[in-house]
């Protein structure tokens, strides 16, 4: 009985820790995606896009549309990622830099940014 409780207890603890770990990782992803998006040497998305939901998104440009309600407008993550990867693929006249195609961002950074943007 005692052994059983111990096992159960450690199981609960480890499960708990695992989920804590996941939560921490999720927040980190959000944070990393945001920093890649904001960094002038990386995404520099604010050069062209406002991010109205984020008070830290200061003095944005307006060459592109504001990034908001993204889940509703891009329910398909792959489409959103493709837009960030190479906007000229669907709109040859787009002035948005092809972040993936021209290796401005790495695959992983494009993923991070996509997750961050989809959460807006």
């Amino acid at each position, binding site marked *: 009985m005692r052994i059983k409780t111990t096992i159960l207890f450690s199981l609960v603890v480890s499960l708990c820790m695992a989920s804590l770990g996941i939560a921490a990782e999720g927040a980190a992803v959000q944070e990393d995606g945001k920093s890649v998006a904001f960094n002038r040497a990386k995404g520099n998305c*604010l*050069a*062209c896009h406002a991010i109205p939901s984020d008070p830290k998104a200061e*003095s*944005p*440009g*307006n*060459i592109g549309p504001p990034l908001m309600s993204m889940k509703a407008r891009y329910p398909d993550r792959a489409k959103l990622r493709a837009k960030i990867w190479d906007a*000229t693929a669907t709109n040859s*006249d787009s*002035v948005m*830099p*092809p972040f993936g195609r*021209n*290796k*401005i961002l790495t695959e992983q950074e494009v993923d991070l940014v996509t997750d961050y943007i989809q959460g807006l």
Partner: protein
Amino acid sequence: MKRKLVYIIMAGLLLGCAHMGTSHIKPEEDRSAMINLYKQIFPNIKFEDYIYGALAMNPDARSQYDDIMAFPPYSMDLDKGKKMWETPFKNGKKFSSCFPDGGKNVAGNYPAFDNAANRVVTFENAINACLKANGEAELKYGEKEMGLLTAYARSLSDGMKVNVKVEGSGALAAYEKGKKYYAARNGQLNFSCRSCHVQGSGKFIRMDQLSMMIGQASHWPEFRGGTDIVTLQGRFKQCEKNVRAKPKAANSEEYNNLEYYLTYMSNGLPMQTPVFRK
């Protein structure tokens, strides 16, 4: 007799066609199409005000600019340019001897196209040709001395309307090359000049409002921050560096053709040199 007349008429027609094909018509169409586009984007900005670029879009910035221009911070630099212009060469002649009317109201004719050499001649090229013809050392393109000298030399043409001519097949080819360069995507960030100054004109990239390309070429060199002299081709370099493209050299064929095209697009607008930019 009748036959001869027909030949003459035919030859005339042919010449006329060739003329239409190679000179005015096409560049002039480009220019009016561009003006019409900007009229739609900026219905409240007068054509004459295009020379103020982004300042024309922002009355507050424009009035600050006017205040600064009343007592320009670069007047000492301009005096240096004046001194260079007026100092006689070893042979006793001066720069003014190389240009009609002592160099007054000539800068707006540049860049010109030299048919014999089959290339674009910028005002800077004409300055160096003058030095060479008088046995003097030429100035380096894109460097401060050339900037200061041309800032003063161009000021002798203040108020002159930009008057670049594209006549003949060589000139048209150079114009077309400049136009192509203007629209070609470049650099890791994949921008063309057109992306920012045509598609983006009036919009903000961060805090910077993007100027229209018409009127961009009528006021060079300019003093950024009041004292930092920048030539037109120096500005091309800065814009290209910003998009992580590899800038071309000052006086390269690419930049001279680009300057030819861009300045043609400012035809009819008054020159003013130099100007202040932040």
